[in-house]
């Protein structure tokens, strides 16, 4: 048995099993027979095994340098280090679809475990059927158009190698997997939504779907932050977010899922907003497919695009299918969802709805901005670009409103506003004003000053929430404040977790404002031994050398950096700037050296060097404030999400539920 054969056979098996699962789910639904559901659940495990076998076969082929397998011949090389080989399955189109499908089968299996329990018997077959249908699509794509295991008739002695950009940083091992876990994770809420609409049970789906969405959201958030990190440490331009269409495609589902996580609370609490929640979930999942379609079809130019091919058309059909199912069902049942009640704007639900409004608007702006060049081309034949300068500008007002709402929301009670709340809001506004004025007094720009104000405002909000809760508890129970905090945090995981997440978001916003406003890029050519004095730094070029490595050749220009004033604080050290030459890439790839400090980041890139005599090198210096804190913020958000999801919290969650309108 060769890895190619094993992989191919198990792919076909997974396709057949998925199709069978779909049939069983349909039977279980239409015949109302629990035995079919049971069989479908068992089948989901078999499918997972088949997919895992296929994925394992691909790893096997890559690790054993089996170049008779097309994927290995095209995207791997015998000289790759072990870790690169391990991550090569998702370094190109076919393998990434295989990883996607594998994760999909895992999610389907997990949903199967809940079928018949929290997922009731009316909805379970529909939810499983939806997931099986998604699987059928992915396995069909692989079997029919993007087969990783095609046999190469005359295997070459070595493969063409892995995309150098992807083997330049270990983050490659982490970021794509997280992204797929998030993208695929959103298929589960979609399946639950479809199930709820088909089974015409419009309320109960929300509890568990919120949980699933939060899981996917956590992965997506982690993926977006690791993606930023990767792009910051690899691409060498000193930024972490370029508003490339594919990056946009990852933020759209994130925004829509965020909107859902907020409006879902209104539905849980008051039974309102059912239709909107179906729409948010459908669109969030459709947005993940849209992102996949963009990267794999080349319909819009992007740095991240995989080689395009016939796969694009398949994904387009799938995208339209998802939208048609979700929106079609919603249109059919929307007359039946009779919601009644009243929303008080000056309460928690008002802030939640307003928040969702802004998340939705932001998603709309990103979708429109991403698609507009295509629309303009259809209408007028002209080509235009919509890129970072545009998105950066429109994000500012939207971001300010969202940060304002983020502070207000948790402070407002579900019931009507009371005097204490008004005092809290006043304190927050004072913090906003003081923070902004402080920034202006320090000579910072208006935008950054406002960011400081908004950070102080949100910090105050969280502080007031926590402090007042702790004080009330410690007073009424006569326990010390520390114990009261501990008990509150343990019993109100959702609330405390959301405080943590909100704190992370506020911190992220602050770091984004600083780094986007005060990033500075400079470039200078230095003779060996020459010193460059700039921005409180003294940069000396020590020498120019070369090094042969297993998968690449590197030109290395070590530099010594000394800080001469406060502006260059924390930059001292000796750094090896380098250009990596990969055999499969014509031009060299610069790997920046990043030196983080508590305030400024120093970023050194070797741009060019004297290839003949080794006498000069061109160094690019980028100084950006606070990027390190952005990674901290990302970590805080993910930890906060984990805190909410931590199993003990699930019981608390369900106990808090009071689906009836009113308080």
């Amino acid at each position, binding site marked *: 048995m060769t890895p190619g054969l094993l992989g191919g056979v198990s792919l076909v098996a997974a396709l057949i099993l998925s199709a069978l699962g779909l049939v069983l789910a349909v039977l279980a639904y239409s015949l109302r027979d629990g035995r079919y559901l049971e069989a479908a659940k068992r089948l989901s495990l078999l499918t997972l095994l088949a997919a895992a076998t296929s994925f394992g076969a691909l790893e096997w082929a890559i690790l054993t340098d089996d170049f008779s397998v097309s994927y290995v011949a095209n995207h791997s090389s015998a000289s790759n280090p072990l870790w690169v080989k391990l991550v090569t399955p998702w370094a190109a189109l076919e393998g990434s679809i295989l990883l996607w499908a594998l994760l999909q089968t895992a999610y389907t299996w997990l949903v199967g475990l809940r079928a018949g329990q*929290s997922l009731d018997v009316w909805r379970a077959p529909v939810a499983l059927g939806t997931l099986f249908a998604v699987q059928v699509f992915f396995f069909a794509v692989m079997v029919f158009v993007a087969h990783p295991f095609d046999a190469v008739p005359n295997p070459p002695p070595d493969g063409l190698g892995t995309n150098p950009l992807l083997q330049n940083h270990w983050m490659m091992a982490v970021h794509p997997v997280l992204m797929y876990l998030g993208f695929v994770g959103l298929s589960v809420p979609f399946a639950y939504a479809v199930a709820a609409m088909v089974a015409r049970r419009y309320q109960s789906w929300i509890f568990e779907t919120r949980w699933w969405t939060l899981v996917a959201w956590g992965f997506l958030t982690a993926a977006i932050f690791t993606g930023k990190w990767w792009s910051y440490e690899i691409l060498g331009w000193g930024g972490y977010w370029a508003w490339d269409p594919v990056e946009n495609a990852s933020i759209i589902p994130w925004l829509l899922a965020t909107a859902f996580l907020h409006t879902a609370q209104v539905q849980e609490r008051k039974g*309102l907003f059912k239709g909107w929640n179906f729409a948010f979930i459908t669109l969030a999942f459709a947005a993940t497919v849209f992102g996949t379609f963009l990267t794999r079809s080349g319909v819009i130019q992007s740095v991240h695009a995989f080689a395009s091919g016939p796969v694009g058309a398949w994904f387009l059909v799938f995208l339209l299918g998802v939208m048609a199912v979700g929106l079609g069902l919603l249109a059919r049942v929307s007359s039946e969802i009779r919601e009644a009640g009243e929303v008080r704007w000056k309460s928690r639900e008002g802030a939640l709805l307003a928040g969702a409004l*802004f998340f939705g608007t932001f998603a709309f*702006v990103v979708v429109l901005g991403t698609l507009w060049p295509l629309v303009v081309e259809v209408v007028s034949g002209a080509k235009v*670009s919509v890129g970072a300068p545009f998105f950066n500008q429109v994000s500012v007002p939207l971001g300010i409103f969202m940060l304002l709402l983020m502070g207000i929301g948790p402070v407002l009670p579900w019931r009507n506003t009371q005097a204490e709340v008004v005092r809290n809001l006043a304190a927050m506004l004072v913090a906003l004003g003081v923070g902004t004025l402080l920034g202006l007094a320090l000579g910072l720009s208006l935008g950054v000053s406002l960011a400081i104000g908004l950070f102080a405002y949100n910090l105050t909000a969280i502080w007031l929430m926590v402090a007042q809760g702790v004080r009330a508890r410690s007073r009424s129970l006569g326990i010390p404040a520390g114990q009261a905090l501990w008990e509150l945090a343990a019993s109100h995981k959702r609330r405390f977790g959301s405080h943590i997440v909100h704190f992370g978001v506020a911190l992220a916003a602050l770091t984004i404002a600083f780094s986007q406003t005060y990033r500075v890029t400079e470039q200078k050519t230095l003779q060996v031994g020459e010193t460059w004095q700039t921005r409180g730094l003294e940069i000396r070029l020590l020498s120019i050398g070369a090094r042969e490595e297993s998968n690449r050749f590197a030109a290395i220009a070590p530099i010594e950096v000394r800080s001469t004033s406060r502006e260059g604080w924390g930059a001292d050290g000796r750094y090896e700037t380098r250009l990596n030459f990969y055999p499969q890439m014509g031009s060299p790839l610069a790997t920046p050296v990043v030196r983080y400090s508590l305030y400024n980041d120093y970023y050194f890139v070797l741009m060019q060097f*004297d290839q003949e005599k080794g006498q000069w090198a061109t160094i690019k210096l980028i100084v950006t404030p606070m990027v390190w804190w952005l990674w901290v913020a990302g970590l805080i958000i993910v930890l906060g999400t984990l805190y909410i999801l931590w199993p003990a919290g699930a019981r608390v969650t369900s106990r808090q539920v009071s689906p009836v309108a009113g308080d």
Partner: protein
Amino acid sequence: MLLALALAQPSPNTPPPDFSPEVFKIAGQLRCPVCQGESAAESNAGIAVEMRRIIAEQLAQGRSEAEIRAFFVERYGDWILYEPPARGLTLWVWLSPLLGLGLLGFGLWRYLARVRARALTTASDVSEEEIARLEAELQSPERQP
């Protein structure tokens, strides 16, 4: 053409000029014409290097940022700008935040009005079966069969 770009472009063995922060700031707003969605500040393609050089030269001649951008627009059209001009068809992207807020806000307003109207009239037109199903729905998930 893309294939051609993937091939080695020999870089001349002469040092590039020194670039001030201003150069990168302007280059960041311009598309690198041969790249797949990178700006002239990010890309290391020869043409992007040359664009940065042109920007540096023009800055040295005392040209303003707007004039430099106009220089590239004259040669490439609006496509070279990552910030689409706020006129004609691309005016709509600038209006998109207001448009989105307006559309969604209108939808929300209509929805809330409907929901409120329904709350005021009694729910008399609901069938027995529907009420039973809704009641089952309103149970928290744990207590369901």
